Every structure is written in structure tokens, then in C-alpha cells.
């Protein structure tokens, strides 16, 4: 029980996010209207994705440093979770875009960059699949993982800021700071980021343990 306090925190935070996110008052704005609540579901997906992909890159570096198999498992499962967060981020973003921009996919630089980011990590799994030898698989995919992460950073954080975009916070459009005059959104947003990230960590931990056990059974 002592060790699982953060799991309870995760459940509490997500319950609060869902209930508070849908029921607490939000700023009334034209066009955005109630879709502003998507802030608590869409934006945390990207925060959580970058955090778990960063963790994946970190474990890949650790693997290259000390060659422990466990670090490779952690890196793979974190990348898996990153893809899931990315896909949910794209879906929630597309739904929001449908109601505010009028199209599911409007060729926005942020949407495109996110999709390309997903391709990079899907390629990572193809690379893993194409290698037979366990040791070589772990090492080469770790190299690619670090390489991919360093290509992802300019893709997600630098390039969309240089082009015109309808996305809030880009191309002269205000981010949520400007809408949120009474800080009501922050009250839910930050707990939401923490909650979704903890959920990701939880799933990664479960899948990591599963992988370790099945590996032991195999041996």
C-alpha cells in the first residue's frame, strides 16, 4: 500500500480532471465555447507524450552506457506509451479542430508535425522487428531512439513556431494564458497533466514487468 500512493494519486487526479474538466466554470469565448474544455484532455496528451518519449530516450542512453537489458525494456515500453499518447493527442485534436476550424484535418503545421513524429516512432518498432539478435536489436534501436528523439525536438517545438498556424499559441494566436484571465483553467489543467502522465507511468510499469516476466519464462 505504501508503494502505491502515486497510483491512488493518479486515480484521484484523473477523476478530478474528468469531473472538474467537464463541470467547473470556463471562460465564455466566441467560436471556442465549450470546446475550451478540450484543454484538459488534448494538451496533457502532448505533455505526457513528450515526457514518456524523453524517458524512453533517457533509458536508451542508459542502455548504451551500461548494457542492462531492463533499460532496453523500459525504453521500448515508454516509446509504446508515447505512441498511444500521440494517437490520443491527434484524435482529441482532430475532434476539437472539427468544431472550431471546421475540418478534422486542416493541414495545420502542428497536426502534420505530430503525425510525422508518430511515423518516426512507428519506424522505431519496424527497426526492432527487423533485427533478430536480441543484443543487437536493443543496441541499434537504442541508437535510433536517441537519434529520433533529437530529430523530434525541432519538429515539435521549433518548426511549427516558424510557420503560420491556426493552433492556439502559434502564428500570433494567443495560447491559453490569454484566455484564462481568472486562472480557472489552470486549476484543472496542471492536475490533468500530472494525472495523465502518472497513468502513462503506471501502464509503462505494468507492461515492463510483464515483459520481464515473459522473458524469464522464456529463459
Amino acid at each position, binding site marked *: 500500500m505504501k508503494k502505491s500512493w502515486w497510483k491512488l494519486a493518479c486515480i484521484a487526479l484523473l477523476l478530478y480532471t474528468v469531473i472538474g474538466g467537464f463541470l467547473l466554470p470556463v471562460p465564455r469565448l466566441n467560436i471556442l465555447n465549450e470546446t475550451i474544455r478540450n484543454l484538459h484532455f488534448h494538451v496533457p496528451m502532448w505533455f505526457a507524450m513528450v515526457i514518456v518519449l524523453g524517458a524512453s530516450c533517457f533509458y536508451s542512453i542508459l542502455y548504451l552506457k551500461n548494457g542492462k537489458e531492463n533499460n532496453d525494456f523500459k525504453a521500448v515500453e515508454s516509446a509504446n506509451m508515447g505512441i498511444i499518447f500521440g494517437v490520443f493527442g491527434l484524435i482529441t485534436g482532430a475532434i476539437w479542430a472539427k468544431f472550431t476550424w471546421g475540418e478534422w484535418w486542416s493541414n495545420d503545421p502542428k497536426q502534420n508535425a505530430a503525425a510525422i513524429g508518430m511515423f518516426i516512432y512507428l519506424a522505431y518498432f519496424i*527497426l526492432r522487428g527487423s533485427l533478430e539478435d536480441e543484443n543487437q536489436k536493443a543496441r541499434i534501436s537504442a541508437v535510433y531512439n536517441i*537519434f529520433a528523439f533529437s530529430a523530434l525536438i525541432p519538429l515539435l517545438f521549433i518548426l511549427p513556431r516558424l510557420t503560420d498556424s491556426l493552433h492556439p499559441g502559434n502564428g500570433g494566436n494567443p495560447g491559453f494564458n490569454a484566455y484564462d484571465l481568472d486562472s480557472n483553467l489552470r486549476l484543472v489543467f496542471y492536475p490533468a497533466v500530472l494525472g495523465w502522465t502518472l497513468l502513462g507511468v503506471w501502464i509503462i510499469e505494468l507492461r515492463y514487468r510483464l515483459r520481464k516476466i515473459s522473458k524469464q519464462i522464456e529463459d
Partner: protein
Amino acid sequence: MIKEIRFLIAKEIQLELRKKYAINGILLYLVSTIFICYLSFSLKSASISVTTWNTLFWIIILFTAVNTVAKSFIQEKEGIWLYYYSLVSPQGLIISKIVYNTLLMVVLSLIGLLFYSLVLGNPVINHQLFIVTVVVASISFSTALTMVSAIAAKAGNNTTLMAILGFPTLVPSLLMTIKITRNALDGLSLATSFNEILTLVAINMIIITVSFLLFPYLWRS
């Protein structure tokens, strides 16, 4: 280290000149692709828009880059790795490969541009900016692809893998490049695109640094 790199580059150039079929093959590939585009768009009677001209050019250069750089590691024979291993440092090897591929790509894309303009016309207004971008983009393509080809070579010399690993990592530079050349086509001055060129160079620096740090691990396996 610098002596080693110079020596390795000289070796690459010598090898390339000795078996001319490889470079001739790539040149023919480039020229035939451009000619196929010319025929497919039936440019004798119709014309293409400036945007299409620009995008088509970069797609041709991109595929040429993949084919050119792919051979740098993939076409090496098994035994030669062992030979390198006993003779040179991994950092020297990756840097020399990057420099050599860059030289090769700059030459190839300039030849490509020449032939492309000859066949499909040249709507560029600011030639200086366009050529600067061609050179910088060739550097980005070859740096990113050199590392990817090293990874793909380790994974059983698979060219499909080369493409799927390479394209997503190339997209940032490709988008940046198309944006800058768009400015060149519109006749804007070099100063207006200075920030974009700087970003492109910065992306290159990241990729070169990461390749430099990671290649020793790749090579050990």
C-alpha cells in the same frame, strides 16, 4: 584525427573514381527521373505551377540522396567493417563518411538543378538564394542519411528500412528547405530567409553531433 579523416575521404574519392559505374549509375538515375517527370507532365504543351516545380525538384533530390547515401554503408562488404575496426576510430569514420557524402550530394544536386532547369525551365528569380539553399539542403540530407544508412546496414542491408527510418527524420529539413526556396522563387532577398537558413544549419549541427556521439555504439555491435 583530422589526418585520419582526410585520409579516409581521399580513400572514398579514390574508390569512387576507380569504380565509376556507381556514380554514373546515380547520375543516370537522377537524369532519367527528371526526364520522366518532363515526359509525364507533357511539358511540351502544358506547364506546371511554380509550387509544383519547386516541390518536384526537392522530391527528386530527396530520392537521389537516399540512393546515393544508402550505398555508403550498405554497399560495404562484411569483411571491410572488421578491417576498419582495426585501423581507424569510429568518429573519424563517421565524419569522413558525412563529409564525403556531403561533397557528393552537393555536386549531384547542382548537376540535377542544371539539368532540371534545362528540361523543365527555371522560374527562380533569386538565383543566389536558391543555390545557397541547394548546398545547405544537400548537407542536411547527407548528414541525416549517413547515420540512417549506418543503422540500416546493421539491420541486414535493407533499403526499405533506409527509407522508413530516413524520411521522417528528413522532414524537418525538407519542409524548411521548400519554404526557403519558395522565397527564392518569389525573388525575396537572402536577408529575409536568413533565419530559416540558420535554423536549417542548426538542425544540421544537432544531427552531426548526435551522429558523432552515437556512431561508436552502433559500430561496436
